[in-house]
């Protein structure tokens, strides 16, 4: 009833090829967006912003980036934390060096800086793949964190070794710094995610995205039909790092406010984002969002349940949580290697026929 193709006639290629080809799905998407843009900002308070919505937006962005690399191009990366750190430090240097710059430009430029670094660390992918590449990206992770710790120029010679975000405004509303407004930071993150999610979706089904998928599915065959592995792999690293860098910049500037590299961008971040991509679904834009939502909301939910409801100690709850996350990953890989996105696809298939299946 809700989800019908019948009567939804397509008369142009453009309407046939659109992201949401079914009318009700399109309506659902725009309703959701309208709620996110127009209703949530009025209801938001500091707790919701800091505990749920900002991490959600940031990790959606990071998962989107990693999914482009791992899911679409098939290059496993464990360097996400390091690349997020690059984004954060680039944002910090830009914010302090050019105080007049608005935060959108800062975040996007930080993304470009990270893309450059990503290309550099993507170079080994031209010769190696699989686990070997994962180890190579681990080198990036550890080297970058070490570098930001060791060279004081990166943190402007501050005594604590931390970077602290100064206040920056968009249209006169503070989005970073201690007096930032919850709704403003939320809308800032949401706008970026919306725009770049849109771009990612269209990149992945265009020429570039198809070349990535060709490389992922079989690199030799791809090369034979004329896909250049060099261009495909390095562009995947660049685009992926661009998104991850923006996520890192937002994580530092809009969410944390002050960060210490080893603590904020350690190897655990790399794994967390990788898990989001796996649970959400490799090679799916929607999957990136679902995976991020799942792993951001699950800890909040579990913490509420175990610490606030049952009155357990925090570290006990943390252990149960880590165990559950690990168990769920194994579970998802066994039951549905294509993740939550595939479950959604199956649900849609069922919905098409509901309530009268054949």
């Amino acid at each position, binding site marked *: 009833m809700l989800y019908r193709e019948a009567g939804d006639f397509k008369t142009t290629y453009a309407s046939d090829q659109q992201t949401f080809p079914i009318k009700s799905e399109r309506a659902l998407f725009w309703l959701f967006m309208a709620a996110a843009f127009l209703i949530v900002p009025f209801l938001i308070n500091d707790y919701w912003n800091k505990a749920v919505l900002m991490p959600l937006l940031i990790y959606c962005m990071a998962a989107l980036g990693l999914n482009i690399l791992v899911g679409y191009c098939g290059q496993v990366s464990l360097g996400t934390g390091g690349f997020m750190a690059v984004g954060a430090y680039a944002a910090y240097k830009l914010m302090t060096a050019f105080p007049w710059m608005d935060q959108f430009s800062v975040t996007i430029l930080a993304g470009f800086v990270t893309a450059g670094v990503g290309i550099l660390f993507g170079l080994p992918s031209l010769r*190696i793949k699989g*686990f070997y590449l994962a180890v190579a990206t681990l*080198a990036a992770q550890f080297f970058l964190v070490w570098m930001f710790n*060791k060279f004081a120029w990166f943190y402007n010679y501050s005594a604590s070794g931390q970077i602290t975000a100064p206040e920056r405004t968009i249209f006169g509303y503070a989005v970073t710094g201690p007096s930032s407004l919850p709704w403003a930071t939320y809308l800032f993150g949401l706008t970026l995610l919306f725009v770049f999610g849109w771009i990612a979706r269209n990149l992945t089904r265009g020429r570039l995205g198809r070349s990535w998928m060709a490389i992922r599915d079989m690199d030799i065959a791809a090369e034979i039909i004329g896909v250049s592995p060099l261009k495909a792999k390095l562009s995947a690293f660049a685009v992926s790092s661009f998104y991850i860098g923006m996520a890192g910049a937002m994580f530092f500037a809009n969410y944390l406010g002050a960060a210490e590299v080893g603590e904020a961008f350690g190897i655990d971040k790399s794994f967390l984002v990788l898990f989001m991509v796996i649970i959400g679904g490799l090679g799916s834009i929607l999957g990136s969002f679902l995976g991020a939502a799942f792993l951001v909301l699950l800890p909040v939910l579990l913490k509420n349940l175990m610490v606030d409801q049952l009155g357990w100690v925090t570290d*006990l709850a943390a252990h149960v949580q880590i165990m559950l996350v690990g168990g769920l990953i*194994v579970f998802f890989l066994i039951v549905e290697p294509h993740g939550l996105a595939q479950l959604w696809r199956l649900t849609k298939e069922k919905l098409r026929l509901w309530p009268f299946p054949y």
Partner: protein
Amino acid sequence: MNPAILNFIEIFMNGLMAGIMYSLVALGFVLIFKASGIFNFAQGVMALFAALTLVGFMTGQVPFAHLINAIFGTEVHTWGAGMPALLAILLTMVVMIALAWLIERYVLKHLVNQEPIILFMATIGLAYFLEGFGDLMWGSDVKTLDVGLPSGGSFWWEDVTREWAAAGSQYYGMYIDLLDVSATIIAIVLVTALTLFSQYTATGRALRAVADDHQAAMSVGISLRRIWVIVWSISGFVALVAGIMWGSKSGVQFSLSLIALKALPVLILGGFTSIPGAIIGGLIIGVGEKLAEAYVGPLVGGAIENWFAYVVALAFLLVRPQGLFGDKIIERI
């Protein structure tokens, strides 16, 4: 002799010892990779889990004490009596075998014929699960582990080496940790035993057959699932040994599981499929790391030990992707 040379020798030797410790972890990876083609990321956490279990048995902790206390509001922590080290080690081994069986039964069985990268990710999930499970079972506080191995510096060696230095030079002898020496001896025994086992026993031969060719091994009547349980048990045993050594050295704590990450460059250097490779790779990484820290580190601000191994591995990969002793993969990218 010149103290500078003696210093070099000391760093070199300590590097070798550190390398042995890496090799112990890398060995577990190689065993599983050879037999099932799975890159077992959980090896480090298995070492942590084994060490936690061992300490728990030795001190007589009640498993899941925190959880039980949280749910039932009781105040249980210990049984009141521990057990001797040897018995505890045996019991821990039983636990590791049970773990291997459970992993085969509930994880691997369902993932047969999946892509290697899916299996790799499954072991990452397994690593997280085990980490949480181990902490939940035994608590996450840093524990000391003492199974009676000698530890501390060797005074004898200090005296001997002091004699070597030129008269009048301010040289006080070399420092060498007795624990590292015992680790070396244990590693040698372990590798010899594993080699003999895989050469001369029926099970060992079956293991090698499976490593060579799954299909062919199955067609001559080798049960793949039984072999996997055995392999995971053996690498559980290796994890236990590694856990004991690392646990005695730096205490049983979460950072123990991170040595798995350090084993990766070792494997790349030595090759994923070679037991001697794991040892040699470990030695090279250990020595390289210590020498780099001592001679290159001061130039760039120190603490390069964290990433040096990975960069060495990366450089090595570009030249020889199959490692020093690994099977050559004939494939062009």
